[in-house]
């Protein structure tokens, strides 16, 4: 199971992923590339989901902080990116660097926690 879960909440788009029509938005191509890169680098330890408003609206209500922002700022608050429950980007897509550093930070913390646990076990 992935230790790190990234969810990107997106506004309504004409099709899943938004890469449709004669002129797909370059921003959407970028985020798809970012996701692919991240998945390649961290493999199974990172799970990335794009929550589409049309098909996954329940995800928006389940993440109350995300819904709350929409009701305050309107759809312009989207896209919102959450990493392990924490909002790290709002109003625009995060870039690869941003996501990478957040994932690395979490992994470092997890490793620290693990080694503390091992130390404690040894002492027992």
């Amino acid at each position, binding site marked *: 199971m992935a230790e790190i879960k990234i969810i990107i909440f997106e*506004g*309504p*788009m*004409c*099709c899943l992923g*938004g890469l*449709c*029509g*004669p*002129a*797909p*938005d370059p*921003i*959407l191509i970028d985020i798809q590339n970012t996701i692919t890169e991240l998945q390649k680098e961290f493999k199974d330890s990172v799970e990335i989901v794009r929550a589409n*408003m*049309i098909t996954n*609206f*329940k995800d928006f*209500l*389940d993440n*109350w902080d995300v*819904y709350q922002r*929409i*009701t*305050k*700022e*309107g*759809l312009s608050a989207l896209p919102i990116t959450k990493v392990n429950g924490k909002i790290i980007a709002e109003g625009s897509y995060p870039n690869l660097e941003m996501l990478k550093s957040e994932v690395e930070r979490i992994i470092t913390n997890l490793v620290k926690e693990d080694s503390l646990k091992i130390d404690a076990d040894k002492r027992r």
Partner: protein
Amino acid sequence: MDEELEIIRKRKMVEMLNRLKQDERKPVLVRIFDLLLSAASCGPSGCGSGGCGPSIMSENLAELETLAYNLVTKYGKERIRFELVNILDTSIQNYKDVYEVLREKKGESLPIISINGEIKFVGRVPTFEEMDRAINAVM
């Protein structure tokens, strides 16, 4: 003396009639809270031709429309008024009790229907009989 009484009686009657008229003018307000998306909100870039993708509105809209139509047919459009509130709209924050239901029941809560400001149905489209009873109770 009799004349004075007559004047008072007439005045009272006019007052009463006015009150009745005012009551008639005030229709029952049914608010429907649901998720509404339209093709107009298609994509950050839109889609050139405009002909792509689904134009999605609420899943319940067809059912709600029939319900509203049947109720208006029975009571007349002067007696009953419908308002559709998109839960994505910032105005949703004005309806504190609805916001609370959404927070508690999440996706299970839609649609939410209130009658004269009081929440009556949560998470489903009521039948005509149920709505009829609820509306009759406040008329």
